[in-house]
């Protein structure tokens, strides 16, 4: 088992208090458990605000869980911080929802892709980093002469490809894909989804694939988790979910999917 999440609870403190944090909070994730096997895809669906991104962020340890356990290859990672997370950072990466915000506008593509290489492959020389960055671009279907260009020179779909290349740079085992296509045109959505599937075949990646669109998730996933208000209300393989939805909320979600 690659990743095991058990009873995950995440809280955000609410603003307030003159000097100290207030004790009021919101709890977008209220005890969530799931597992991801190596090389497999787990889909996570739910409406906007149901806590999908929050779960993703907790898994990549952008935020610390309030309680619960996260194990990666049997090892607890929910309590780690700072440098002790470093080995984990090399194995678990994230692709973000909004391709316009996820690339620093001031850095060239070479710098953006060079950064993870610099950190996780410190032995590489500058020239080697550059050629690796060019390889990564080629792998996600961008011309390698894009290296010296800046993010604003690319379209949304191309930026999402750069984001994928950055995640691939550290040679991870698991990638959290937070609605990687929902900000894109339908025609480009299919291209990105296909790219992610090709990469999975080629590199044996595992995905936690987050989406509010059941159709996309169904296409990708080995198992689908349905999230409602911070709780998983149903977990099943996609065919079964379609055939025989057990939960009221799942039925509502399914009814909202336009039939093709």
């Amino acid at each position, binding site marked *: 088992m690659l990743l095991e999440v058990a009873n995950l609870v995440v809280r955000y403190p609410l603003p307030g208090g*003159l*000097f*100290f*944090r207030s004790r009021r909070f919101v709890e977008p994730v209220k005890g969530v458990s799931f597992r991801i096997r190596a090389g497999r895809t787990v889909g996570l669906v739910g409406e906007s605000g149901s806590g999908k991104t929050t779960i993703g*962020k907790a898994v*990549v340890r*952008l935020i610390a869980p309030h309680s619960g356990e996260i194990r990666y290859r049997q090892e607890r990672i929910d309590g780690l911080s700072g440098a002790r*997370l*470093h080995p984990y*950072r*090399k194995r*678990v*990466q*994230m692709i*973000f*929802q*909004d391709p*316009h*915000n*996820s*690339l*620093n*506008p*001031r*850095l060239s593509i070479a710098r953006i892709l060079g*950064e*993870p290489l610099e*950190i*996780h492959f410190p032995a590489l020389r500058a020239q080697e980093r550059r050629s690796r960055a060019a390889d990564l671009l080629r792998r996600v279907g961008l011309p390698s002469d894009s290296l010296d260009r*800046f*993010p*604003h020179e690319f379209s949304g779909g191309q930026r999402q490809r750069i*984001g994928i290349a*950055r995640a691939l740079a*550290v040679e991870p085992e698991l990638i959290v894909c937070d609605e990687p296509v929902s900000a894109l045109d339908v025609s480009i959505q299919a291209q990105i989804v296909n790219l992610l599937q090709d990469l999975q075949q080629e590199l044996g990646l595992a995905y936690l694939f987050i989406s509010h669109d059941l159709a996309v998730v169904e296409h990708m996933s080995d198992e689908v988790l349905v999230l409602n208000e911070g709780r998983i209300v149903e977990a099943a393989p996609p065919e079964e979910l379609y055939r025989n939805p057990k939960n009221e909320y799942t039925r509502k979600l399914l009814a909202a999917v336009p039939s093709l």
Partner: protein
Amino acid sequence: MSSLPAKSSGLWRQVISRPQGALALGLLAFLYLCALFAPFLAPYGPSDQDLQRTYHPPTALTWTREGLSVRLYKNSDPTQALYQPIPGKTAVVRWLPLGHPYRLFGLFPCRRHLFGVESKQKIYLLGSDSTGRDVFSRLLYGAQVSLSIGLIGISISLGVGLIAGGLAGYFGGWFDSLVMRTTELLMAIPGLYLLLALRGAFASQFSSGEVYLLIVIILSFLGWSGAARVIRGLALSLRAQTFVDAAIVTGLSPWRILWRHLLPNLASYLLVASALSIPGYILGEAALSFLGIGIQEPAASWGLMLAQAQEMKVFMCNFWWLLTPGAAVFLTVAAFNLLGDTLRDVIDPHFRTGNR
């Protein structure tokens, strides 16, 4: 964010391509060059007195057989400073003559000046003051103080503001609260009173170098809070951008994120803020010196020169040339504001004024 020019060379090209930007940059370049080469450009030292020629009007320049010359004047009434040109008597302007020794840039010993006249006579391009010192020379030496105080002051206050505000915005928590409450405290006290109180807290028997330092420190102490608040806000909003999350997931240390991801995105703000706040320092120094608690005699600064122009006699007898430091302050402040506005127009399209 996406509208920021990616490279800074492009930024300056855009500034120069606008008439007001080119004007402001040109003017500032001229003023700073004057300050840098002040000892060379000035025919006299800042404290060279000539008690025979007090309140001398600007000497007229004429063209004679010998070349460019200055007219000579006779003081018809020493009590009233009534100078009359002596018809037909002139002194030729010498180029690159030897004069009083100085160190160029504080380093190279040198005696050459750009121009001068024979030592018995005087050339007063902008007249002389109550002890016969050359206003033109003092204006140049004063520029060294007045123009550098802004640069040094802004470096200190923006530096402190950047560190305090940047860390407060990025890390939040108790440090954020501490910084914000401190800035609020500082901002609640009217600046001028705080300025006077701080200055008053220190004894006045300082050398001019120490006073200069003290003024810079006081002004920066007052100035950092505004910058810190804005930078904190920017850091907060940058912190919320996903590329910072991406950098964290990549495994960058917080310092590296601050340095590589936040600072470059703050650079354009810092540039605009510097240009727009430097006038505050120049005016602050002028105000302190004008009130007699800034730069002390015999050193020169624009504020000090203006303070000396307050005498009744100056107004009664219309010694207008003693007010030229005021014009210099005005020009400098206007140029910095113009530059700041232009930079902001180039950097931030939301604030763009008028047609481009």
